[in-house]
């Protein structure tokens, strides 16, 4: 088995090439940081060759978690060959990494991607000359148009076993003389890697030093060489080496790249409007409004209404019922199918169209390049409450699904910021929470148009408040990490990519409906239709639901939620099943309230719901389910990303507590107008005052910390 790693700068098209070569359909987007973990696949041409798609890196000195993953893989695993994907439209900066990859001693093949764009600009790259200068094969390709990939494959098959690479150094003689001296001390590695280790030793690279066993005398010798070199160049080693690389690259680019274009390109002109200091925020607000308005209210809402009210009420259930009657099916089985599975799954699947429209728009935003600009625009605002603009991308992805949202936090360099982003990302309503919002809005607020936007507003407010409160605790104190991010050029969204990404996310939702939600609905149906009556387990009649196992369980939990206004067992059960998957909340109501007669129209469930909730308790129920611990899948993602039990427990505990208190305050405040000022109201006021205090108190540790930092400096 041979291993080929795809490495390159962020957003240079590694995943596009990976997909084309392995036939997989990994997720692609036009912003840096789409791939945050390594992906494995087998090359289509020979299953004995393994291809690894790595997160993008600018250099082999990593700053964020995804970059660490890429570097560790390249340096510590046995990689037989590196395909260095280079964005040909940005040759100079991309070749910086190439010079480092060449030094690792692993055979490199350069895939010059996006050659079609270079040609469109009217520029020319002298590929043969580039290959001669770099001493490695250079293959022009276009991942998007599937051009040149066969030649690339031929080249790496030919090159994969060949270790006898011609050694060459990109450095000037002044620098080389030091490198050769350090190499003299490096007896622990083979010739091909000597220059790499020499540079790392001079740079005092900590990660490399950990792996090397060296005697003190040798170390001291290197230390003195380092000082000598610093004195000669009057700079630190990293800068000397970086400068030397760029000097070599500028020279190389001047020889091989013929440029025709000049001045501002279209992408810059778009940026001067979209990121303009006056227009940036209004444009962003308008874009977001259109996305949610269209996907929740107009197109999405229309199709969803039809699926809920017509398809899953008038068409499918009567048809299935007739069919079951014609089979002379047992009453319990037809109840399981009609009241359990169809009522539950139907309640969930009804929202699929809405979701697809939302995913379509999100994919559009990502593919055209606007996503990266949003991070830049939001940075100024997020900084005010202790997060950086990079935290916004996980949240935007989180509107689709919390799991990739939480994972997207890997591009954040600062550990504290990353933890805080992981904790707060799921406050944004994900697509699985949309059905809950729609159900509550429809059942209790007459479909009022303010309910859905208010859910997003609550999510954002929860993030903002959590940011401010948490930043003032000792755990998260300190300024958010500074923001630096490459902005990709805008391009027309590729319909294929957009549809693929929409399908990718949407189909996982449908898959979930077919597996975990199907299973849940069956369990919920059994638990709600069976119970203990007169000491025996029996199937219950329509009127006896309150004797069911589920009711017993729910009634046990209900007092906990009574202060929030929804102390009935159905709501308690729904909130609990929501922890498995948020879609279950709606599915549970579908089963519990859809009992008996097949509803004549979808409003049947709504009426039953309207009876057991008041406007205040329903809103409190909504808020609790929006903010509390996410589904199992997302909790698993939190655990993976925190990589620490204490932090996982803290994150989930914080979310639940925050949700509970927020719902409590909202419900009790609303109740003052009904019951007057009671003990509970006083408690709610106390909680609210505490919240305001935490929000506005002066961070205690800040001064101390500054003093510490000064002391250090």
């Amino acid at each position, binding site marked *: 088995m041979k291993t080929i790693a795809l490495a390159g700068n962020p957003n240079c098209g590694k995943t596009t090439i990976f997909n084309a070569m392995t036939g997989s359909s990994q997720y692609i987007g036009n912003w840096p940081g789409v791939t945050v973990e390594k992906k494995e696949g087998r090359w289509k041409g020979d299953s004995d060759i393994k291809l690894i798609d790595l997160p993008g890196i600018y250099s082999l000195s990593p700053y964020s978690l995804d970059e660490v993953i890429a570097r560790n893989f390249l340096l510590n695993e046995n990689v037989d060959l590196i395909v260095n994907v280079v964005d040909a*439209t940005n040759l100079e*900066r991309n070749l910086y990494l190439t010079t480092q990859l060449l030094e690792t001693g692993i055979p490199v093949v350069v895939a010059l991607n996006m050659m079609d764009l270079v040609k469109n600009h009217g520029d020319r790259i002298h590929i043969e000359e580039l290959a001669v200068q770099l001493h490695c094969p250079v293959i022009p390709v276009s991942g998007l148009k599937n051009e040149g990939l066969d030649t690339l494959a031929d080249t790496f098959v030919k090159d994969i076993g060949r270790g006898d690479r011609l050694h060459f150094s990109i450095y000037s003689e002044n620098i080389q003389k030091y490198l050769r001296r350090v190499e003299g001390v490096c007896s622990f590695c083979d010739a091909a890697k000597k220059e790499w280790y020499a540079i790392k030793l001079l740079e005092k690279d900590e990660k490399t030093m950990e792996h090397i066993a060296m005697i003190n005398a040798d170390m001291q010798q290197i230390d003195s060489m380092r000082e000598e070199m610093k004195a000669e160049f009057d700079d630190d080693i990293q*800068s000397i080496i*970086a400068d030397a690389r760029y000097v070599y690259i500028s020279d190389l680019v001047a020889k091989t790249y013929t440029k025709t274009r000049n001045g501002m390109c279209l992408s810059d002109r778009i940026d001067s409007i979209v*990121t303009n200091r006056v227009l940036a925020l209004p444009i962003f607000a308008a874009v977001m409004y259109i996305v949610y308005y269209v996907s929740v209210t107009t197109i999405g809402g229309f199709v969803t209404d039809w699926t809920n009210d017509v398809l899953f009420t008038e068409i499918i259930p009567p048809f299935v019922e007739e069919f079951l009657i014609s089979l002379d099916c047992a009453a319990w089985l037809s109840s399981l199918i009609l009241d359990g599975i169809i009522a539950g799954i139907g309640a969930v699947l009804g929202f699929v169209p809405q979701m697809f429209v939302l995913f379509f728009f999100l994919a559009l935003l990502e593919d055209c390049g606007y996503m990266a600009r949003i991070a830049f625009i939001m940075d100024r605002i997020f900084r005010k409450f202790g997060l950086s603009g990079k935290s916004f991308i996980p949240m935007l992805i989180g509107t689709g699904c919390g799991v990739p949202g939480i994972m997207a936090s890997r591009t954040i360099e600062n550990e504290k910021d990353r933890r805080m982003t992981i904790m707060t990302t799921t406050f944004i309503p994900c697509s699985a929470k949309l059905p809950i919002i729609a159900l509550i809005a429809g059942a209790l607020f007459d479909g009022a148009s303010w309910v859905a936007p208010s859910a997003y507003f609550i999510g954002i407010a929860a993030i903002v408040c959590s940011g401010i409160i948490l930043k003032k605790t000792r755990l998260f104190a300190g300024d958010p990490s500074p*923001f630096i991010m490459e902005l990709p050029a805008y391009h027309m969204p590729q319909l294929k990519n957009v549809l693929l990404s929409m399908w990718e996310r949407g189909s996982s939702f449908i898959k979930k409906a077919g597996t975990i939600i199907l299973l849940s609905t069956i369990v919920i149906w059994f638990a709600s239709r069976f119970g203990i009556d007169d000491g025996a387990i029996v199937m219950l009649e329509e009127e006896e639901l309150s004797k069911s196992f589920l009711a017993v369980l729910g009634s046990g939990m209900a007092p906990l939620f009574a202060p929030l206004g929804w102390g009935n067992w159905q709501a308690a059960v729904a909130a609990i099943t929501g922890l498995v998957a948020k879609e279950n909340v709606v599915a549970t109501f579908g089963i519990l309230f859809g009992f008996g007669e097949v509803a004549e129209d979808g409003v049947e469930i709504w009426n039953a719901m309207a009876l057991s909730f008041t406007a205040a308790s329903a809103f409190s129920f909504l808020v609790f389910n929006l903010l509390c611990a996410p589904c199992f899948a997302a909790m698993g993602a939190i655990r993976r990303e925190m990589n620490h039990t204490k932090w996982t427990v803290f994150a989930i505990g914080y979310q639940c507590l925050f949700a509970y208190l927020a719902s409590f305050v909202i419900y009790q405040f609303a109740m003052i107008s009904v019951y007057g000022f009671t003990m509970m109201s006083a408690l709610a006021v106390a909680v609210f005052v505490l919240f305001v205090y935490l929000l506005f108190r002066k961070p205690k540790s800040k001064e101390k910390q500054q003093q510490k930092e000064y002391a250090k400096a």
Partner: protein
Amino acid sequence: MLLTTAPAGKELRIYKIIGKDDVRSRLSDMGFTEGSCVQIINEWKGNVIVCIRDARIALDKTWANRIMVCEGKGEIE
């Protein structure tokens, strides 16, 4: 002058990068080295989008304040 206060649209040249080693190496990985040319595409309260080595890079104030530039073209020697 600092990159945060430099005029937009003009050809600028970096003459000094201030900061600790890790700051400088992060910047040089992204293409910011002493002697290289930058152009400010857009500025927003100290946060800037610049064009450097054919790439568009967004930087916040903290980063931009570490980059000293002067006006005038000039190739990297």
